[in-house]
């Protein structure tokens, strides 16, 4: 049986595919030097949201990190970063909630960073998406 959380992450990856040069789930290294954009999907764990007889409702944290490298200085890189952010959020909200799997999603705070003294203007953003879903008590693979 496929864990419900696996179904959610698979949907996130599918939604973001093609939006950046690299889209990777649970990366262990940064983007390739050859790429200009990257989206990383990180599992932020999950917390108990609610429960009733026979049902466990979870708040799953999906971390989305975006990277943009540009040669046109700060304005060009920042504009590209904002464009990547918009396309990622729009794609995620179009793909989630998944009918019959997750019932609600919420976007968390956004943070933006600049790599100091990098060999090209290099910016990153990071935000969390909270996905709510309910499973049968004691069975993370069965939706309830």
């Amino acid at each position, binding site marked *: 049986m496929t864990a419900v959380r696996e179904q959610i992450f698979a949907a996130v990856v599918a939604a973001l595919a093609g939006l950046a040069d690299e889209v990777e789930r649970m*990366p*262990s*290294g*940064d*983007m*390739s*030097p050859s790429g200009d954009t990257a989206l*990383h999907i990180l599992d932020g764990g999950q917390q108990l949201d609610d429960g009733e007889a026979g049902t466990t409702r979870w708040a799953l944290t999906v971390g989305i*990190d975006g*990277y943009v490298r540009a*040669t046109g*200085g700060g304005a060009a890189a920042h504009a590209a970063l904002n464009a990547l952010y918009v396309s990622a959020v729009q794609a995620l909200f179009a793909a989630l909630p998944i009918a019959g799997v997750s019932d609600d999603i919420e976007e968390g705070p956004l943070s933006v*960073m600049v*790599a*100091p*003294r*990098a*060999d*090209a*203007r*290099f910016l*990153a953003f*990071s935000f969390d998406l909270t996905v709510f879903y309910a499973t049968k008590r004691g069975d993370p693979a069965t939706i309830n």
Partner: protein
Amino acid sequence: MTDIPGTDAAAALRRCHDKFAVDVTVTGAGLSGATVKAVPSNRAGDAFQGPGRSARTIAWTFMAADLPSAPTRGMTIDDGTTLWRVVDIENLGGSASFRLVVEAAS
């Protein structure tokens, strides 16, 4: 080398610089497309968001005597492969040389 006095020290520093330097084309710091010798460096950048450290810091070190005026941010350095733009300036050895941190300009 620190006990080499006066002009000998300057000459030794110059020889040392030229030994490791390559020719680059500089615009800025009083130069306009002039060829100057600069020593390249390429090392890991400062820690950054994410699991890895893909950012690199590239810098060029110039002898101050080769630059008619002090370097400024925005001056460009062309090494024949990449056009670099200066984003950070370090002053070394009491202005004897400048280490210029760059980013790709195009």
